[in-house]
């Protein structure tokens, strides 16, 4: 009797302590849980995988430092995928706060590849394999303008080079030379790409969003306007898994690591619900 009553009335501070521990420990001692990719994630992966050599992947870094834990791993995984498959990459941001995040991701992933590279052919070279166009405003002009001529929207890149002079930009002129635009976003920017870029130019749009935003994005996935959706930490972890298992690309997997914390937290909550109900049913039976 006493035992079951205790099960029903665990002090909230014990609950908080356990939750804090199960979230913190995986960061100190990372362990990997290998997630299975859901269809929306796999669709995006497959579509990017099939981008022909004469087209580019465009990543729009549309988040700010406060959603970095959730979204930066996605940008990194997308870059690893593209570099591994030798797909040209163009990166831009619609918000000025995204600049630093985008540059961090590009430098990190380019370094990862270049440390392994032995020849110039193997290396990832700025201007040949990827370009960081930087930031321009207003967003609408950027999204529509890239349909006509990307080098006119971004006449100089983030580092001040004339965009037209970069080797990659000789082939990548407008949306016709872009396989897909993936908007990594904590806001509604993917929908801007759909409403303006897709309606006017038929560009394919992929969405990588926070878990909270994802609920608003599902209708566009179901209607086929969005090609694939990565949602939250879980979506990022699934993409990282695909990149590692299918391409053999290794490297720090921050979403997967955080997923370990997520997983243990979810299990903890579920366990507490079960414990509460065990106590509840046991007591009810006694009373009868």
């Amino acid at each position, binding site marked *: 009797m006493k035992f079951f009553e205790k099960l029903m009335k665990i002090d909230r501070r014990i609950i908080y302590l356990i939750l804090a521990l199960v*979230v913190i420990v995986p960061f100190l001692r990372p362990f990997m849980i290998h997630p299975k990719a859901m269809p929306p994630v796999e669709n995006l992966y497959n579509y990017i995988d099939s981008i022909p050599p004469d087209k580019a992947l465009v990543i729009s870094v549309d988040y700010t430092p406060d959603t970095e834990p959730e979204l930066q791993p996605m940008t990194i995984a997308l870059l690893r995928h593209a570099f591994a498959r030798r797909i040209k990459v163009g990166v831009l941001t619609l918000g000025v706060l995204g600049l630093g995040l985008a540059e961090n991701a590009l430098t990190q992933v380019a370094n990862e590849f270049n440390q392994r590279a032995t020849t110039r052919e193997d290396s990832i070279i700025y201007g040949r394999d990827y370009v960081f166009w930087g930031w321009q405003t207003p967003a609408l002009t950027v999204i529509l303008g890239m349909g006509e001529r990307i080098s006119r929207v971004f006449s100089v890149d983030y580092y001040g080079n004339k965009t037209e002079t970069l080797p990659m930009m000789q082939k990548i002129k407008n949306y016709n030379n872009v396989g897909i635009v993936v908007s990594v976003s904590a806001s509604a920017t993917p929908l801007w790409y759909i409403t303006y870029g897709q309606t006017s130019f038929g560009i394919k749009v992929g969405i990588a969003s*926070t878990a909270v935003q994802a609920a608003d994005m599902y209708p566009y996935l179901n209607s086929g306007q969005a090609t694939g959706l990565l949602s939250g930490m879980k979506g990022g972890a699934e993409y990282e898994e695909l990149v590692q298992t299918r391409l053999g690309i290794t490297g720090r997997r921050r979403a997967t690591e955080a997923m370990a914390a*997520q997983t243990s*937290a*979810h299990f903890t909550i579920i366990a507490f619900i079960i414990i509460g109900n065990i106590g509840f049913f046991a007591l009810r039976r006694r009373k009868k």
Partner: protein
Amino acid sequence: MSGEPWIWISAILTLAIFSFLYKENPFYRFGEHLFVGVANGYSITFMWHRILVPALINPVAHGQKLWLILVAFIGALYFTRFIPKISWMVRIPIALVMGYSSGAYIPRGIDAGIIEQTRATVVTRASFINWQSGIWAILILIGVVATVSYFFFSSERKGPLKPLSYIGIVFIMLGFGASFGYSVMARISLFIGRIQFLLRDWLGIIH
């Protein structure tokens, strides 16, 4: 470990809030009172530099939109609250805001909240691209009808309304449970964000 004083301040304030989970304490109380003070200071700054200066003071100082002085006068009527005899005049600016927002809501609310939603709920032959999506569309229609009937206030729940409103509450509870479960992941992510700040930016334990 970080050498930047602001990181230390942020970290200490973060811990002050977390300490509330154990119990209310002076540390939390300090953080809470500081938060309220700085938030008000920030709001004052924002209202002045981002609203009053660009929308009122600049145009008027340049001799444009002089009618804005009248608007400022209406806004200033809020202060009549401190003068008992004419304190009723505080209702004038409130009435203006209330009236405009209410009026603006009516047609937009009908459009977005009723007409658009009705269109989305009606099942047509186009809903049956495959049998599954057709059945789901019909189920959504049933769910909507049942949920709406849960909120009939002017009659007792008898006759067909009784089972219908019961189905309604079943749908509502399924939906609420799902929303709850779905937000868990996002909220844990927020906590992970704070932990990463403490362990990485402040203590430098993880990279």
